[in-house]
């Protein structure tokens, strides 16, 4: 056990999987000697050699396309895209190629790839360095999407992702990268993809969230009156969504607030809201509330904290939903 940051826990998982399986290779811009711009791959090129930790040209579509080719030929590529805003040029290779190969070949060709991407706002970064595109990839069939927010979960989920026989997008909430530490076992362990975590139990209302927003929600919960009991669910995996855990909670509480950084419209809040009312219609005592980013582009950093749901806004959403 060691007290690790998210960055360190991910690094540890990468080390262990690269040691366990020769077919695991990392590729991306600056992942080599520099260890990536967030130092997530620090020391790996030195340890495993440049060929397994490959600096690539500055071409996101190239990174994903080459990774798909590696996977077709039996490797387990772990590409990194430097910031979620630069997934754009790689969109086609992810959605129309990586995601489709197994089904379009009826299983003859498969893509066991784990795409690592720092995600989300809150670190005062430049333009296109603070977005939250997870709904886009959730709507695209054939991908699994994971977004852990604690070092422990990150290590266990990354190992699961790398071992998964299908393409997984592993989103890393960059706001949490160095902001939080916890005990992480040295030994390898896995956390199953597709299982949400009940962070705190409660009877009055269910909050569903993921990524860095989990911490904002915890802060909001702290600010609530003592007699309010909120169940907080960290999805951890976004696709497939663990509807059972959410529905079981809302059947108990009768109220639900979904919190995410991405814009509201056609975001995952909508999907969760739709599922909750499909599954828990007769239990619902108030409409499912969405506390999310606005339907605007992510502002430059002077205004980013106004854009992202903070404890204040989340707290209000909870109180209003309770008052309904």
């Amino acid at each position: 056990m060691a007290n690790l940051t998210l960055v360190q826990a991910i690094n540890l998982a990468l080390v262990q999987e690269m040691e366990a399986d020769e077919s695991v290779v990392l590729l991306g811009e600056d992942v080599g000697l520099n260890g990536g711009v967030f130092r997530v791959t620090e020391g790996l090129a030195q340890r495993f050699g440049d060929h397994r930790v490959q600096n690539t040209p500055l071409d996101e579509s190239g990174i994903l396309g080459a990774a798909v080719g590696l996977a077709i030929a039996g490797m387990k590529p772990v590409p990194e895209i430097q910031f979620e805003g630069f997934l754009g040029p790689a969109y086609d290779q992810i959605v129309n190629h990586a995601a489709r190969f197994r089904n379009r070949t009826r299983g003859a060709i498969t893509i066991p790839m784990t795409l690592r991407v720092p995600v989300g706002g809150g670190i005062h970064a430049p333009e296109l360095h603070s977005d939250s595109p997870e709904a886009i990839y959730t709507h695209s069939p054939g991908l699994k999407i994971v977004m852990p927010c604690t070092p422990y979960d990150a290590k266990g989920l990354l190992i699961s992702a790398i071992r998964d026989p299908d393409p997984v997008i592993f989103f890393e909430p960059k706001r949490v990268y160095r902001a939080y530490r916890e005990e992480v076992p040295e030994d390898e362990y896995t956390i199953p993809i597709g299982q949400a975590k009940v962070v705190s139990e409660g009877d009055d209302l269910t909050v569903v969230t993921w990524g860095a927003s989990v911490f904002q929600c915890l802060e909001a919960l702290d600010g609530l009156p003592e007699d309010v009991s909120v169940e907080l669910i960290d999805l951890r995996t976004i696709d497939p969504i663990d509807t059972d855990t959410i529905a079981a909670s809302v059947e108990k509480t009768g109220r639900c607030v979904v919190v995410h950084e991405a814009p509201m419209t056609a975001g995952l809040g909508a999907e969760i809201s739709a599922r909750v009312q499909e599954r828990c219609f007769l239990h619902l005592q108030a409409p499912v509330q969405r506390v999310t980013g606005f339907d605007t582009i992510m502002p430059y950093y002077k205004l980013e904290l106004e854009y992202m749901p903070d404890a204040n806004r989340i707290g209000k959403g909870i109180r209003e939903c309770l008052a309904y």
Partner: protein
Amino acid sequence: MPKNTVYETDIEFLSILDEDAQFDESLGIEDGEPILSDEQVVYLYEQMWIGRQLDEIAFKLQRSGRMGTYPQNKGQEANAAGSGFAMKKGTDWVVPCYRENIAMNLHGLPYHYILLHWMGDERGNQIPEGVLCTPISVPIGTHMLHAAGIAWSFKLRGEKDRCAITYFGDGATSEGDFHGAMNFASTLSVPVVFYCQNNQWAISVPREQQMASPTVAQKAIAYEMPRIMVDGNDIFAVYKATRDARKYCVENQTPYFIEGVTYRLGDHTTADDARRYRSEEELQQWMAKDPLIRTRKYLESRDAWNDERQLELETHARKVVDEIVNEANSIAEPTTSEIFDSMFAEIDDDLRIQRDTMRTSSIGQNPEQAGLKAQTQNA
């Protein structure tokens, strides 16, 4: 502007069997023998013939409503045949676009897979174990990166006698992913033969609107990639260029670029009408350069072919193609379960329920939700 020259380069063009079936012995003979023996040329001629026969049948199937849109390979056969033949079956990977039926078949893919693909059936992409082909690729340009990745895997695993070949059209060279594939392959230094079938058109867009360069081959200069232009309707030139390119790739662990200068004798696909945008004259000029005609003439000049063998081949080809069509048609209709079963190695509960109920509406999936009975199941 006055300046110092710091870089010089050129492009060369290879032609052996020209459109009048004249054979350039200085290029086509090695160690006293033609680079392709008569038997080999006969074999390739037959393959090209069968390929074209399949094209014609596919066209008819489409016209009679038994197949979807189909892109004919007609006129370009020497590219796929000569290059496919030069690569090592079972060792090398073939990463095609959609005008390389013959190369896929030479590498072991039964032809009915290709028909199934165009008949709207994913089982046409379910490449059999051991056949090292990716399926036909409909989106333009994106598959070349996969070839680069496949070749990279050879390098990572230290498999030194393997190579990938990828095919694409002149139009495809405009896509960003073409650039990416060329750049990745050359910077990673991995063995891929990039084979461009420059058939002068991308649907209705002529080469001059597609690129400002007089050759496609010069695009390889941007990547410092060895390259050659060949007469793509010349089975000898195509074969020799690809054979040598493959050797070069494997020995030097680098990619190689081949531009096959050719022409699409048919419409773009069965959904197209080329008369809308290109002249009959141009078509006629290229008809005269047909690879099948000149290959036959070559064989005849060597007494390796005659009218009788031709008749035999035609009968044989019709039979072969009929069998292929029967094979494709005999496959049972797909079940709706297939829509779901291969989405993931293991499909999750949500997908399982969608599959089992063929419904997305929550009540349709859980009839008891509304006190409904099984009548709501998939009818």
